[in-house]
C-alpha cells in the first residue's frame, strides 16, 4: 500500500512540476520558453545515452540518429495525418511521442545488434556510422524535405510543448533511477563491469545490451518527436555528428553512470553557450565586445592556471585545507597573469585593434570548459555518485564533525 502511495505522490509531483514550469515560463519568461524546452530535451537525451554508455558500458556515440528517427517519423506522420484525426494537439503530441519512441526503438534494435559482435572503439564507430548513414539517407528523400528540411506544423500556432518535454525528462530519469535502484538494473551494471564474468553468472548479456539500446533510443526518439512539434522545422543538419558529440560530452562530463551528473551537465552545457549568445550590455543592449589583447591574455593565463592547478593536484600531498589554498593560489596566479599580459599584448600590432563579440566566443569557451574540466576532473563532475538526500545531509553534517575532531 505504501509503495503505491509513494508512486502516486511522486507521479503527481512530477506532473505538477511540469505544469508549474510550463505556466511560470510561459507567462513570466516567454523569451526563454524555447530554451527551456530544448534544455528538457537535452536532459532526456543525455540521461538516455547514459543508460547505454554509462550504465551498460556500451560505447555508443551516435545518439543523434535516434533523436532524428523520432523527429522525422513523428513529424512526417503528424504532417500527413493531423488534420484527419479527432485528438486535441496536446494529446496528439503524446501519441506522436509514443510513435517516435517506437520507431527509434526499432532503430535502436538494429544498431544494438552489432553491439553483440563489436566492442569498444569499433562499436563506437559503427554507431557513429549508422547515424551518418541515416542522416544522409534522410537528406536524399524528397518526400521528407530532403537536404533542406521539413516543416512540421500541424497546429495553427506552435503548441505548448514545454510540460510534455519536461515530463518526458522526468520519466526518463525515473526509469533510469529505478533501474539502478532495483534488482533489474544489476545485469546492466554487471555487463558494464565484465561481460565474461556476467555471462558466467547467468546474466543474459546479449539481451541486456540490446535492451539498453532499445530503451535508450526509445527515449531519444520521443524527445525527437517532441522537438519536431515544438520547433516546427527540422532539417538533417539539426542532427549532425556534433550533436551526438555534445550529448556524449554531457554524459561523460557529468560522470559516466551518474544520472544526476547527466542532468546537471546537460543543463549546464546547454545553458553556457546560450547565455553567452545573449550576453549584451545592460544599458545600450549592444553585444559586449572583448578586446583582442584581453582575449589572448585570458587564453594564455587559463593555460597557466590549469597547469598550476594540475601540478598541485598531482604533486602536493599535504593536508586538505593547504591543498585547497594552493588551488586558490593557482587560480589567483591565472588572474595575475591575465592582468600582466593584457598591457604587454596590447603592444602587438594588429591585435590591439581587434575585438571579438562575446557571442562569437561561445563555442570557444564551451570547448575550453570541456577540456579544462576533463583535465582537472577526468571522472566527471559527479563521478559515480548520485544525488540523494542523505548525501546532502552528510555534506552539511561533515563540517561540525571535523571541528569536534
Amino acid at each position, binding site marked *: 500500500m505504501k509503495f503505491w502511495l509513494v508512486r502516486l505522490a511522486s507521479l503527481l509531483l512530477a506532473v505538477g512540476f511540469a505544469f508549474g514550469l510550463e505556466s511560470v515560463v510561459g507567462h513570466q519568461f516567454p523569451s526563454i520558453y524555447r530554451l527551456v524546452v530544448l534544455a528538457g530535451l537535452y536532459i532526456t537525451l543525455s540521461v538516455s545515452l547514459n543508460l547505454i554508455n554509462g550504465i551498460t558500458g556500451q560505447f555508443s556515440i551516435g545518439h543523434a540518429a535516434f533523436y532524428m528517427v523520432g523527429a522525422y517519423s513523428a513529424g512526417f506522420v503528424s504532417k500527413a495525418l493531423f488534420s484527419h484525426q479527432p485528438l486535441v494537439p496536446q494529446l496528439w503530441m503524446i501519441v506522436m511521442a509514443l510513435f517516435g519512441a517506437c520507431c527509434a526503438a526499432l532503430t535502436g534494435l538494429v544498431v544494438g545488434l552489432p553491439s553483440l559482435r563489436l566492442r569498444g572503439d569499433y562499436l563506437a564507430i559503427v554507431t557513429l556510422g549508422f547515424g551518418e548513414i541515416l542522416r544522409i539517407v534522410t537528406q536524399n528523400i524528397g518526400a521528407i524535405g530532403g*537536404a533542406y528540411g521539413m516543416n512540421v506544423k500541424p497546429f495553427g*500556432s506552435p503548441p505548448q510543448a514545454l510540460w510534455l518535454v519536461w515530463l518526458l525528462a522526468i520519466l526518463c530519469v525515473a526509469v533510469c533511477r529505478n533501474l539502478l535502484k532495483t534488482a533489474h538494473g544489476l545485469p546492466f551494471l554487471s555487463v558494464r563491469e565484465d561481460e565474461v564474468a556476467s555471462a558466467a553468472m547467468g546474466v543474459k548479456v546479449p539481451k541486456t545490451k540490446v535492451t539498453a539500446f532499445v530503451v535508450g533510443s526509445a527515449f531519444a526518439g520521443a524527445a525527437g518527436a517532441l522537438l519536431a512539434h515544438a520547433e516546427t522545422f527540422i532539417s538533417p543538419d539539426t542532427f549532425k555528428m556534433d550533436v551526438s558529440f555534445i550529448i556524449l560530452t554531457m554524459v561523460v562530463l557529468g560522470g559516466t553512470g551518474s544520472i544526476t551528473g547527466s542532468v546537471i551537465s546537460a543543463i549546464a552545457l546547454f545553458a553556457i553557450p546560450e547565455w553567452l549568445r545573449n550576453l549584451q550590455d545592460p544599458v545600450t543592449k549592444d553585444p559586449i565586445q572583448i578586446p583582442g589583447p584581453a582575449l589572448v591574455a585570458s587564453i594564455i593565463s587559463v593555460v597557466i592556471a590549469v597547469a598550476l592547478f594540475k601540478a598541485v593536484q598531482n604533486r602536493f600531498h599535504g593536508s586538505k585545507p593547504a591543498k585547497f589554498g594552493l588551488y586558490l593560489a593557482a587560480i589567483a596566479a591565472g588572474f595575475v597573469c591575465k592582468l600582466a599580459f593584457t598591457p604587454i599584448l596590447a603592444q602587438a600590432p594588429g591585435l590591439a585593434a581587434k575585438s571579438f563579440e562575446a557571442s562569437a566566443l561561445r563555442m570557444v569557451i564551451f570547448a575550453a570548459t570541456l577540456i579544462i574540466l576533463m583535465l582537472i576532473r577526468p571522472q566527471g563532475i559527479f563521478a559515480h555518485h548520485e544525488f540523494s538526500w542523505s548525501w546532502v545531509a552528510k555534506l552539511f553534517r561533515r563540517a561540525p564533525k571535523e571541528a569536534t575532531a
Partner: protein
Amino acid sequence: MVKLNKTFATTFGLTAALALGIIGASGCQDNSAAGGTTGTAGTTGATAGGTTAGTTGTQPNASPRPTPQKDGATIGDPIKIGLVASQNGDLKPWGDDNIKGSQLAVDEVNAAGGINGHQVKLRIEDSNSTPETGKSAAQKLISDGVVGLLGEVASGITQQMEIVAFDAGVPLVAIGATRTDIATLGSNFFRVCYTDDLQGPVMAKFAYDYLHLKSMAIMTDNKQPYSVGLSESFRKAFEEMGGKIVDEQKYQSKETQFSSYISNLKSKNPDGVFLSGYFTEVGPIASQMRTAGVTVPLLGGDGWDSSELITSGGDAIVGNYFCNHYNNEETRPEVQKFLADWKAKYGGVPGTTMGALGYDGAKLMMDAIKRTMDAKGTKSKDLIAALEDTVDFPGVSGKITLKGHSGNPPKRALVVKVTKTGQSFVKAYEPDEVMKK
C-alpha cells in the same frame, strides 16, 4: 523485467490519463486556435514542397495570398526594425554587406531627423547561415517588438523567417531571396530583388540567343532551395526555347571535391554549363572543371556574386557570365549617391550586390513606416498595407513597385561577365522581355 514493465506501463497510463484530463479543460481553446488558421495549414503544404522543385509557383498572381491573423507590433519610439543576416557561416560575405547597407540607410535617416521625429533602431540578429538559426533569430526579434523584419539573402533561411513573421503578423522584406514560391506563403512578404522566374529565363535567353549555346548541362546544389528552384526555371525556359539539357549533376553545399561530377558531365559534351549554386562552391567547381579539360562557357545566377569568386575560381572563372541585380558602373544618381555614401562610411565599394539590396530593403521599409505614420497607422498590419502600396520606389537596384505584384517586384536583370578584377556589364534584360504574361 516484468515488474519494471508494469511500473512503466502504470506510470505512463497514469500520466496519459492525467494529461488527458488537463487538456480536456483547455482543449476548446486550442481547438479554436487550430481552426482559425486554416490558411496556414494550406501553406504548410506549399512550403514542404520546398525541395520538390516541380512545384515552383510560376504564376504568383494566380491565387490570393493568405493574410496574417495577428496585427503585429506597434510602432514605438525609437522605431525598431529587425534584420536577420548571416554574421557567421558560409554566407558571411553577404550577411556583412547586407548589414552594412541596411545600417547605412538607417544612419542616413536618423541623421536627417528620423521618421517624423522618431529615431530608428536597427536590431540585428545572426542567422549563422542556417534556416533553423534564422528562424529563431526572427522569433527573437519579433518578441523584442520589432515592427518589421528585413532579411535574408538566402531563400532557404527566408522561407523559415516568413513562417514566423506570418504568424506574428509582421511584414518581412527579403533582401536577396530570389526563390519564387516564398511569396505565396503570406501577404506580409515582400522583396527588393527579382525572382528566379526572371533570373532563370534571363540566363536561358542569354545562353541561347546571345551565346548561341544549344545544349547545356546543369550543376545544382541540392541542399539549397534557391539552387534547386533556379535550375528548374532555367531548364524550363531553355527547353522551351528549343535548347537541350544534356545532363544534371547534383552536389551539396560544403562539398569541396567535384572531379567525379565533372568527369560524368564532360562525357555528355555540353556546349555550356549552368551552375546555379552559391559562389562558395562555384569557384572550386570552375577551377576543377578547367583542370579536367572542360572549356565551355559557364553561366550562373546571382549566387555567384562575390569578390572572392576570382580567387577560388582563378583563371577558370574569368570570362564567364552571371545574372546580377545592379552594377557599380551604372550612372543612375541613386547608384552614384549610394556608392559615395558607402565610400564615406566604410571606404571602397561594396564587394557584393547585397550592400545595395540591404540598403534598398531598409530604405523601403522606412519609407513605408513613414507613410504608415502619416496615415495614422500604428500597427505592423498597417505597415503591411503601406508596403503593398509601394509604387516606383527609387531603389539603388532599380525602381521597385510592389502594388499588385504579390510581393514580387518586376525588376531589371543584368548579365555581367567575370573579369580578372571584378565584373563588367554585358547586357540588361527588362522583365517584359523574358517573362511571359
